């Protein structure tokens, strides 16, 4: 029988390749597991990969080529900007496009179209989760928000954070907002403003990503700002911790722990399989999203008993806290991204991230917040 075909239009070179490669490897691992277990609908899964070179025009071309080659589903880049052109090509051919880890709700019904999904949660949900956690579990009363304007992801995370924080503690407990750019060599003036506040905040929320985020944390600590620092998921994993030797009191929401202390057994199982398959743990905790992506699609195909897009999308849209490795997963015909999947809160101590506990946000972002209307 004909094999099922999955195409990967992802970056194998260029800066985005670092974000695509880990979830891609995990996705391959899942495909192999399925094949070993007898395949999907009794058919083996074949996959092919083409390099978008971190270039939008290339992404569109590669997407079109893969679709042209007859894939049943197209996996696209981790990033909305670079995944969307490929996803558009899939849309035109009536195929499902599934992004490895775009955190933008526009990678879905309202943006690319009803056949497009992403395996990640919305960036807003990260901000919401850590804001709620800080207020409810860490008992922090006031906060200062430092927003990196370089990419939309951070703006969304910050928007989520603010909305949840205000809902839980009131407008006035956000003692101030400031902005910076990821490639600013110095945030001295932002620090001066923070230090000049009449009342120092209980915590600082930094929505950013590396390297600028790491640099900001280093400069905050160097300036003697010792309050807890809250951050969004992009700052997860140990690789940047050298930048701030002795960092502690740093918290963020994560997908999973790569360090064996995840309270959820399915995560540790994933970790072990990855080590077995590749001889090393994943380089990034985003990895699990790729694994889960295949898992979700395959499950839907199994339910629909066909790879035909309409049917599969129908099944996926009916997911309601469907348990997958990455966590309970829900889609609707309006929303193809997670907004309240539980997060693993992690903190940094003695040079490494450590799992604290799993936390699920109760504040759910509405459409306005997800698309940041009138922010």
């Amino acid at each position, binding site marked *: 029988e004909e094999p099922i075909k999955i195409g990967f239009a992802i970056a*194998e*070179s*260029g800066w985005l*390749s670092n974000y695509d490669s880990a979830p891609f490897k995990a996705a391959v691992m899942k495909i192999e597991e399925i094949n070993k277990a007898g395949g999907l609908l009794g058919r083996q899964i074949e996959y092919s990969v*083409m*390099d978008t*070179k971190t270039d*939008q*025009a290339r992404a*569109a*071309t590669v997407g*079109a*080529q893969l679709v*042209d080659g007859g894939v049943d589903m197209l996996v696209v880049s981790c990033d*909305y*900007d670079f995944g*969307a*052109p490929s*996803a*558009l090509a899939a849309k*035109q051919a009536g195929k499902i496009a599934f992004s490895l880890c775009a955190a*933008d709700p*526009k990678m879905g019904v*309202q*943006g*690319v*179209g009803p056949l497009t999904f992403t395996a990640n949660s919305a960036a807003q949900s990260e901000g919401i989760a850590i804001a709620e956690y800080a207020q409810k579990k860490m008992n922090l009363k006031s906060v200062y928000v430092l927003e990196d*304007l*370089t*990419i*939309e992801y951070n*703006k969304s995370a910050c928007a989520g954070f603010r909305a949840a924080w205000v809902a839980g503690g009131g407008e006035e407990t956000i003692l101030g907002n400031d902005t910076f750019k990821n490639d600013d060599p110095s945030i001295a003036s932002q620090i001066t403003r923070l230090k000049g506040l009449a009342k120092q905040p209980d915590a600082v929320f930094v929505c950013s990503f590396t390297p600028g985020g790491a640099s900001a944390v280093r400069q905050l600590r160097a300036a003697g700002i010792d309050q807890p620092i809250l951050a969004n998921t992009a700052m997860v994993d140990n690789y940047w911790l050298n930048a701030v030797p002795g960092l502690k009191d740093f918290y963020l929401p994560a997908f999973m722990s790569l360090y064996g202390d995840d309270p959820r057994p399915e995560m540790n199982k994933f970790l072990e399989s990855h080590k077995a398959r590749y001889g090393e743990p994943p380089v990034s905790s985003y990895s699990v999203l790729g694994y889960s992506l295949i898992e979700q699609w395959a499950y839907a195909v199994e339910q629909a008993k066909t790879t035909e897009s309409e049917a599969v999308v129908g099944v996926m849209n009916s997911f309601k806290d469907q348990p997958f490795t990455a966590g309970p997963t829900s889609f609707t015909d309006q929303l193809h991204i997670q907004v309240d999947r539980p997060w693993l809160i992690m903190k940094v101590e003695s040079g490494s991230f450590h799992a604290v506990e799993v936390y699920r946000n109760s504040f759910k972002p509405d*459409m306005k917040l997800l*698309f*940041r*209307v*009138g*922010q």
Partner: protein
Amino acid sequence: MKSKTMPSLAAIGRFWFPVLALVVPLALIVVVTGHFGGLSLQRTVIEMLISIVIVVGLYVFVGNSGIISFGHATFMAIAAYASAWQTCCEMLKPITMSGLPHFLRDQSIPLLPSAIVSVLLAGAAAFLTGLVIMRLTGLAASISTLAVLFILNVVYSNWDSVTMGSASIVGLPTYVTAWLALGCAVLAIVIAYLYQISAFGLAIRATREDEVAAAASGISLYWSRLIAFTLSGFLVGLGGVLQAHYLGTVSINNFFLSFTFLALAMLIVGGMGSLAGAVVGVVVITAMVDIFRRLEGGISIGGQQWSLPAGTQELIIAGFMLLILVFRKDGIMAGREIGLPQQPHREKGLING
């Protein structure tokens, strides 16, 4: 006996030859790849033709004035966004671009008028920018265009309610075919050619060679540059619209430094002193990139799968550009147009001069 119209036909031929020498091969490429090429090759050809529109547009100013402009991506972005506002995603627009005026937010505008309006907008933006910065000369002018590029980038990246910030606007109608792209490339080439042989073109080329002597010849640096800047603003605006409706997405990050550098590199590798150089530069670089990308993707030689490591294509292209610059300082075409063989008196010049 030749008929009376023959000489004038020959004259017309001679007049248009530099254009035909560029356009005919391009048309051939489109026909051949349309019939025999794969999807990837066909798309590469479209991308090449769009690049020709852009680089020829850039050439109209940079080549003729000798002033490097880093700012032209600005006018592409203005046109591309304008087109997106008019034609894109009726469902998403009211949500994510809530700051748009009503007549844009709640409806779409037909493709042709929207394209024309967008191109006009780019030209107008170039005119207004030029009004201010064409007072400057040389490096100061270049650097100001770079400043303009940054300013637009900052504004569009943060004007969230209208541009969706730095996120891509996705879902523009993708109507750009090879033939449409070819048509636009031909249009750009013809406009650039007519401009460069016009009195305006001559005047601005004089300022490129020697500003002092041009002033002594009664030429206005400011106006001749402003005209070129505006015209090239229109042309790159056209390129921006094409690009937007080829990709179906618009993103401000695509109109920034790396794009600017690539476009300039194409122009200079081909030779910024001539229209032929602009076109040849695009064709050569596009071809090189495509070839090495294929090698990277892997080819089989005698049943043996063989490929370059990912990322080497960029290294090779950079090295190739350097080689061309080192061995042909003025670019591949070295400032010359493709013309019919000149009258024989060139020989005499050598003996005598």
